[in-house]
């Protein structure tokens, strides 16, 4: 729970370099901090503010708008049960109730062993596979109560460690953009008409000129 580590600061600078303006990196950097600590700490938000050049209040304003950023410690696994319409029709709400009973917490709560935070979430785009669940944003489709029990057991035992990383980790493959291959990422003020557009415009103009 702290500022970004030196390795993450380096990664942060690489992420910032992908945007014409540093502030655009706010959300990715908050994810980076959350991946580091499991949740988004105040210290991390201050650090993100320094990195993107705004105030901590602005970072908080942005981060707090989004569901995924947790400003309190969470369990190792966030178990998100979808109860929106398609899942509701096929037992999503009952599945959530079952999860509440099995884990002994209400939505938003964390089990005392720090393993699970249960959440009642909105549609997660798995509607045809209802009822659907995400654990740390990894999908589990068409779950009945027994499947859920098994899932919890597997998570507890570590059997799913390869597929479900700890909370905060999103894509484990990162876009890898280095200076050589970057075409043209500069602030908008510095941008002009792209070369291929100019080439075709000039071509068209000279053709027009020839025609008339």
């Amino acid at each position, binding site marked *: 729970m702290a500022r970004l580590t030196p390795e993450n600061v380096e990664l942060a600078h690489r992420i910032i370099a992908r945007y014409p303006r540093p502030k655009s990196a706010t959300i990715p950097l908050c994810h980076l901090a959350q991946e580091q600590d499991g949740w988004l700490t*105040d210290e991390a*938000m*201050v650090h993100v503010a320094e990195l993107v050049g*705004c*105030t*901590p*209040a*602005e*970072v*908080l*304003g942005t981060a*707090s*708008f*989004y569901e995924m950023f947790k400003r309190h410690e969470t369990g190792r696994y966030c178990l998100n049960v979808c109860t929106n319409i398609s899942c509701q029709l096929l037992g999503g709400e009952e599945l959530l109730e079952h999860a509440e009973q099995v884990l002994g917490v209400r939505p938003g709560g964390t089990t005392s062993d720090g393993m699970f935070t249960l959440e009642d979430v909105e549609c997660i785009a798995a509607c045809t596979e209802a009822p659907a669940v995400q654990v740390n944003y990894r999908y589990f489709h068409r779950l009945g109560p027994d499947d859920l029990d098994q899932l919890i057991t597997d998570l507890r035992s570590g059997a799913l460690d390869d597929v479900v990383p700890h909370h905060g980790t999103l894509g484990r493959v990162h876009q890898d953009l280095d200076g050589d291959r970057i075409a043209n990422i500069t602030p908008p003020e510095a941008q002009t008409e792209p070369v291929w557009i100019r080439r075709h415009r000039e071509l068209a103009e000279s053709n027009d000129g020839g025609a008339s």
Partner: protein
Amino acid sequence: MSEPPRRIEITEPVTITVDGREVTAQNGEWLIDACERNDAYIPRFCYHPRMEPVGMCRMCLVEVDTGRGPALQPSCMLPVTPGMSVDTTNDKVAKAQDGVLEFLLSNHPLDCPVCDKGGECPLQDQTMAYGPGESRFVEEKRHYEKPIPISETVFLDRERCILCDRCTRFASDVAGDPLIHFIDRGSQTEIATFPDEPFASYFSGNTVQICPVGALTAKPYRFRARPWDLEEVESTCTSCSVGCRVTIQSSRNQLVRYQGVDSDPVNWSWLCDKGRFGHEASNSEDRLREPMRRSEDGALRVAQWSDALGAAAAAIRSVDPSRVAVLGGARLTNESQYAWTKLAKSVIGTDHVDAQLGDGLPAEVVLGLPGASIDDVCAKGGTVLYLGPDPKEELPVLYLRLRHAAVSDSVRIVECSPMRSGLSPYAAASLQYAPGELPALVAALCSGDVPDGGVAGVDADTVRSAAALLDGIDDLSVVVGRANLAETAGVVVDAIDAVRSARPGARYLSALRRGNVRGALEAGMSPGLLPGRTTIATGSATWTEAWGAVPTAAGLDGLGILDAAAEGRLDVLILLGADPLTDAADRSLARRAIAGAGTVISLDSLPSASTLQSDIVLPVAAFGECDGTTTNLEGRVTVLHQKVTPPGTARTDWMIAAELALRLGGDLGVESSQVELWDELVKHSAPHDGLSSAALAAQEDPDGLLLPLDATIELAATTPTNVPPRSADSLRLVVNRTLYDSGSAISHCASSAALVPEASVRLSPADAAAMGLETGTFVTVASSHGSVSVPAVVDPGVPGGAAVVRHNLESVDAGVLVDAADPVCDVRVELR
């Protein structure tokens, strides 16, 4: 809070239909303003005429037809187009507006009886006018902990907040201090600061003024009065020379609140907190209420006015006029300044008169340069060379105007400053020069001739790219002032000379700090000067005719007066609201002067270090306690109004001058009111032509009247100041000011006094590293005149070779380091 639409000149008239009437509006203006201008007021909460609209509250929905059929549209974000037809009252509009009102009230507490805003609350007014009788919302309302402080001065009651985004927009878009923000989402949204990072903005009070409900309240006003107990008049803030228009409000003969008024050429309705909460000083228990005289035993004791005035007159009468000096007066009204000039220069017969304490610019420079108004400087697309002090610290609302110009009106600012300032982030180029070397930098910027090794400590590329911004700009606006009190005025004058020779078309705005310093100079409160921008050489005939006598040779200026007093060459030193002991840049000179002057007569409203050392103290009326006029830094004359009576037997400065004149066998020619003084000045002064008290009173708007920008006095040729090179083992001192310092006005303002920053010496990272210092290390800063012990702060905004100490903070006295006689001041910084 009801802010009227901005007054505009209709340059592109279009005809639109408002509720069946054809009216004229400005093409492209917001529909909400066009309707209000044409007597169809549309209710609103989030819209503010001085901020970009967000269309958030949805209260201003009206039905608009632009040819594609009528549709509900937010009038605050809809530009007027020709032929537009608007219905502001039909059933659909009424239903939509009632709906919004009901939604806003659904979670709003019913605590109007204990709310500061009760009685002047648009939400309350709307509800009374149109609102539903009984709420249909039977569920539980949102609950939050009642008011929480979000800064030293502002409280937030989240239950009352209607999320209009006004305070947050103000903080980020107007003040540039985005320290309050929306957090969370949807119906959970609230306004918040970051934990442990308060809304410490010099402009925080504006958010209280523009909050449309009682969600934001100001500590200095909370529970002090109810709106229906308030009486108010319009006036001009004299805390600094920007001259923001205000309404001053009182309750039971006490000033309780100042609110910004929208003066288009000046403050756009904003105020800084120092000005806004200045009434706390007026109400201070410590106010000087009765005259005092130093008695035999050395103590200051209350005296009768007749006694105190008699003693003062006797002291003056008993000595040669050349041994009498008048220092200060920049905080007086124009009328009091004129009265005191007349008293000194005609009745007493001394020309040792200076409204400035050696920390300003020579009068002929201020009055002799072609002027630029704030609007001129901020005009869209212009270019500004900024050579003044940090405007955020010294002239806060000028900073807001400059910031807006840079951010929204594509004004390019080239700033030259001794360290990065509040303005620097918005400047197209910001150059930090070595103290004393501004003239060389300015010459290089104007000519584009830049030595490869750079100039004034700024590298060549930086100077060249800044010079490119100025290249070919003949109508340059130049803001000039004293950014460094440890550097003589001559250095700034040399820099101005460099601009004048390179850009003859340039126009200038003097960024002098004290409230009515411009008025003082216009009234002749400077050696060699007479009122109406005349000198002894050019104005003697006029003013001899008016006054009977005028000085024949120029007297001493502020520094000269202090020197003379220190050397025992003055028998009477009159301080007009001046406090050299805390305000002069050279502290030891001030101490020697006060000690060496014969009789010190001090006119002031609050006790200060200097009044406590005086022999005769005369209590004066403060802001809000007297009528008159004031002149801002542009030369704009506005009317000041009295709202409450002064404490005790305190009097207005001009009355004291008139009384003294009588006791000295003269007569200022004023019977009963300051208006006589003003009209006498207007009568004899060419620049004041057309500014009679009648003309000022006839003004419909709050903007006042501008003295001519062009009428100037002749600029004397100057000799360049010789700045010695800096030795390798020393740093060059910068002394600059902060908004809140330990001056007497702030010390007597409870809410501001808490905000005075801690003293420190700021050093560049390179110098700090070389000395092995970190932020927080205690060091001794020593010049050949004195030393102070302060913690170091490593600040990347400070250029190498400079050491920055803030003027007049707490017990730390940067003034002891400075010798006013030296062009610059070199110091050594050593570990304690």
